[in-house]
């Protein structure tokens, strides 16, 4: 086998092994936990998530008004149109409470994500 082909095959095998090794954690990171907005409030209002693990949160807007899912602590803000949903990717969180709110409606009760 020519040297160049050998190097190429080795690199490809290494890359594939790396992807395979990362697959379980990647799958965990993309498995969303859901927060639903309806009746002018978030549900659940407190979402408990594992600390030290990247995760995704799916925010579903089941109301008929545009909301903005926002968290200063998490440095996230994203508008969600009625009937639509978004996925918010979060890095591994330290143990603690991270509040979130609807920035477009200040009378909506705050929610919090608690990392344990």
């Amino acid at each position, binding site marked *: 086998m020519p040297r160049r082909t050998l190097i190429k095959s080795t690199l490809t095998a290494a890359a594939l092994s790396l992807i395979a090794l990362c697959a379980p954690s990647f799958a965990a990171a993309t498995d969303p936990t859901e927060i639903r907005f309806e009746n002018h409030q978030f549900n659940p209002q407190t979402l408990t998530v594992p600390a030290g693990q990247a995760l995704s949160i799916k925010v579903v807007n089941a109301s008929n008004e545009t909301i*903005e899912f926002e968290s*200063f602590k998490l440095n996230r*803000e994203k508008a969600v149109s009625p009937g639509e949903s978004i996925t918010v990717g979060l890095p591994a969180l330290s143990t603690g409470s991270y509040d979130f*709110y609807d*920035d477009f409606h*200040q009378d909506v009760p705050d929610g919090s994500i608690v990392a344990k």
Partner: protein
Amino acid sequence: MIAVLSVAAFMVAQLKPVRLTNPSPKGELSAPPEIDAVLRRACYDCHSDQTRWPWYSRVAPFSWAVAHDVNLARREVNFSEWGEYYPATRKRKLEWMERALLEEVMPPWSYRLIHPGARLSDDDRVRLERWIETELDVPANGPSAK
């Protein structure tokens, strides 16, 4: 042929109406004059109900983008509704403003490019940061605190 089609598309685009409104202020921000001047120069066109609509905001497709951006910006923070915000909401807006200042993401580069007068000098930034710090020191409580 392409030129003719482009002109036709441009003309048709003008038929889609865009509402460029400046509602009556509900609770204008009251800030020291030097802060007020900076905010009006750099922020008010998008983040208030006192937008100075530029000429291109009346020409599609620019009008669509400008109207969209201003509407969104007003929902994010509207200095003409500042007095209507709960104290806790005001605190949050101030915190985001401070972050935007530190990260130098406001005013957006695209806006600064067309409106060089909206650029913030180092002095402007320092002044605004000090004002934000002062405002954040005011306790967010009271009857309308969330």
